[in-house]
């Protein structure tokens, strides 16, 4: 009876069944060779990874590319995901490593064209707000790079990836309360650097 109803419902029902599984179940299915499980994992986590990568690098044209690399590395190196470690934490650690190394080069490039921005401002006065916003983003990104690595990871996971603190704690290997305290300290440091006040 149940086989018959699945057969009638077709691939859509199979996909719904996959969607209802948790990450660990999907990882097991992908390890057994089910490609749809990999696709479901990507759909489930792609927004978070993409947000982190895009906001870390500030470059939409490379965000797709890096997001693909992050998932490929995670899905094809699952033998390194041991025990009951969560797939999401593993994925976000890879995403942090990938987006940081690319972001460093990019933000150096972003700081360079000050004259170009000044010229644009004089040629198109209406662009002031956009230019100011862009400048502020650059300042924030530059200030972020000066934070200690642990603070930087936590701020990027919260502000850029918009992860809940529980997941952030799992990713960086700490408690939820400690992640919040680190985040609070980091925001205070960022304030001093971006706004120039204590």
């Amino acid at each position: 009876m149940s086989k018959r109803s699945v057969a009638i419902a077709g691939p859509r029902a199979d996909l719904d069944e996959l969607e209802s599984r948790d990450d660990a179940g999907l990882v097991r299915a992908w390890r057994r060779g089910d490609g749809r499980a990999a696709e479901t994992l990507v759909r489930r986590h792609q927004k978070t990874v993409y947000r982190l990568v895009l906001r870390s690098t500030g470059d939409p044209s490379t965000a797709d590319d890096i997001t693909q690399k992050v998932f490929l590395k995670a899905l094809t190196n699952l033998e390194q995901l041991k025990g009951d470690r969560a797939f999401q934490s593993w994925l976000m650690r890879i995403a942090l490593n990938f987006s940081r190394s690319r972001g460093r080069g990019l933000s150096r490039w972003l700081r360079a064209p000050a004259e170009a921005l000044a010229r644009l401002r004089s040629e198109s006065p209406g662009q002031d707000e956009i230019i100011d916003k862009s400048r502020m983003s650059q300042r924030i990104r530059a200030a972020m790079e000066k934070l200690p690595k642990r603070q930087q990871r936590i701020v990027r996971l919260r502000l850029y990836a918009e992860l809940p603190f529980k997941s952030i704690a799992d990713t960086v290997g700490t408690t939820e309360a400690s992640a919040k305290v680190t985040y609070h300290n980091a925001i205070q440091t960022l304030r001093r650097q971006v706004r120039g006040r204590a």
Partner: protein
Amino acid sequence: MKRPCEEWSDACVDAAEDHINAPFASHLEKCDACREAVERLRDDLELLKPDPSPVPGPWLAKSIRHKAEAERERRPSRLLLLAPAAAAAAVLVILALIASWTAETVDSPVIAEAPSDSTPFPGHDILQPGEDSTLVLNDIWEEDWGPGVYGLLAGADDDDLIRILENIPP
């Protein structure tokens, strides 16, 4: 400007994001410094908040799936080529470590030594007695170690990792 109370630092973050809990709410009624900290944090988060992000295209998941499947099909043949060489290299390393350890044990008298404060690897604290090895493993990042060492450490078992970080022979 007064500093906020340290024990409420995490609650300040929740409050700045509008998730205030009852104990902290009653603390806020009495504490000017914490109230000020929450307001300042709210203000800062508003400034630091990035623009809304677009979502990745629907093609992305399918594309990654196909690439991952292709990669996985390619992998076994590569593994078959690399496995014997890797196994031989691992055996040689283990034999060399055992040999050097045995030589040290035989040659040198037993001297009680205070635990060293330094680690053979830069930027990482040595494991303290009773410390959870998982914490150490979680503290390994590619940016600290470079891709080669990171790959080795990330793939190591917790026991191996403790040995590597503490420089203990097997």
